[in-house]
């Protein structure tokens, strides 16, 4: 079920221990710390391996996450805003990652710019509750989605390269 590529991606991300959702008060803080530690390590690893592709940040409660992800295509960097909420059923169900600015530009999205995940993602997530966290959702959900959809959207002329202004 888990192929080599996935295995390699997974081996990069620390697993989590605490099974707690945003309604669980103190335990949620514990879980949130694990999420942050896992994410920090994952981003640092990505940087070391010259494969830095996202930044994330959350509100104080850790229930809303936002940031940026980018994808390099033909040496050009395409950047998108990422956002998602932590559902009350987390971590039994994965967060639904959204790229709002692409909403309506591709059929591989649900309302609000939520990315359409592969058939394999949800079973994989379900088998690994509560060990999978936000980092895994990014790596196994958003990563593969960008790799398939962005080149296609560029080829179709739906998205074009924007010179960085900031």
């Amino acid at each position, binding site marked *: 079920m*888990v192929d080599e590529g996935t*295995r390699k991606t*997974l*081996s*990069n*991300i*620390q*697993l*989590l*221990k*605490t099974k707690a959702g*945003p*309604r669980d008060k103190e335990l949620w*803080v*514990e879980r*949130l*710390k*694990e999420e*942050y*530690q*896992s*994410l*920090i*390590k994952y*981003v*640092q690893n990505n*940087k070391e391996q010259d494969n830095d592709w996202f*930044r*994330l*940040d*959350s509100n104080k*409660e*850790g*229930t809303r996450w936002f940031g940026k992800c980018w994808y390099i295509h033909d040496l050009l960097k395409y950047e998108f805003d990422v956002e998602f*909420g*932590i*559902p*009350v*059923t987390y971590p*039994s*169900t*994965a967060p*639904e990652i959204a790229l709002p600015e692409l909403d309506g530009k591709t*059929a*591989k*999205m*649900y*309302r609000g710019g939520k990315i*359409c995940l592969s*058939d394999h993602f*949800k*079973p994989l997530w*379900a*088998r*690994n*509750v509560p*060990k999978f966290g936000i980092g895994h959702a990014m790596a196994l959900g958003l990563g593969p989605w960008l790799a398939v959809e962005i080149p296609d959207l560029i080829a179709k002329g739906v998205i074009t390269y924007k010179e960085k202004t900031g």
Partner: protein
Amino acid sequence: MNTVKELQAKLKELEEKLTAATQKNMRQKIETMSSEVVDSNPYSRLMALKRMGIVNNYERIRDFTVAVVGVGGVGSVTAEMLTRCGIGRLILFDYDKVELANMNRLFFQPHQSGLSKVEAAAETLRNINPDVDIHTYNYNITTVDNFDHFTKVLTTSSLTGGPLDLVLSCVDNFEARFTINMACNEFNLTWFESGVSENAVSGHIQYICPGETACFACAPPLIVASNIDEKTLKRDGVCAASLPTTMGIVAGFLVQNTLKYLLQFGQVTNYLGYNALTDYFPTMTLKPNPGCDDSNCRLRQKEYALKPKPEVAVEAKEDEKPIHEGNEWGISLVSESVEDSEPKVVEGIKLAYTLPGQSSIEECKEATTSNDISLEELMAQMKSI
């Protein structure tokens, strides 16, 4: 040239005319359901169910409050059926808007595009049957901010101010189903799960009474085997297909069992599947999983075990028979994943996926250990990368 003021006045006048015109066509509320057979009685054919001995007391339908969560292809038709049946109070949840892409399904009309689904639905439904008290909530139930309100509505909005009589899940995603499951286990509410597959050619309904039947978290979701090889299923360029037929059929099953449950006639089916390609309708009963992940489900199971059971006519002998005669539907339960807690499914139904035993991913790094570092420090560390 008209001034803005003149145009505003004109607009107001037209709006008033429109309201007056719509109200003229609206029928008056009916105090009590009559079984008189006259052309002007919207309830005569329903009340005839009493005369024919199908339902003992049809007018009790007015005492019930039902929530429809998700007012899409299945939910909107479900809401319309319940409205036409004269349900007492109907509570609608959805956060989506009507779009032209919805027009391959029933109920909504092109001119409603852009309106919120709950608003558009409520307007149509009030017109169909003004006796039904319709409440609408336009928000996403899965978010932390909305969940508490959602559960408050479910537990306090019946016609007597108590918990609802039944919750109907007509949502199109796993997260929302899980949210409803969580709420219903916590507050001990009976509900029906319903669904149509993303390829539009199968569907199901499932009766979930916390503690008595399997909850949505007791096992991986049960789906109808479509007999289509996953590899030949083309998913290019779309997330989901849909048909008004499959959705209408599933809504029909859902409301049929809702009526049977509320008005106590016939038998409520625990799980009813529909395979559109072969017109096959598997049914089965599912016991709750004693090791369910949801602690409230386990609590309800304990409560149920202590309750005196009503005497039921002998019917439980299905377990003795071999479960599968053949394997026409391609059920594949991988041996290593079959545990005692895993439900036995009948022919034509399969688990959406199998769950492994304990500690499955040895290929990953060990779990993070939270040491003395504070959350604030971690957040700052994340920002500074």
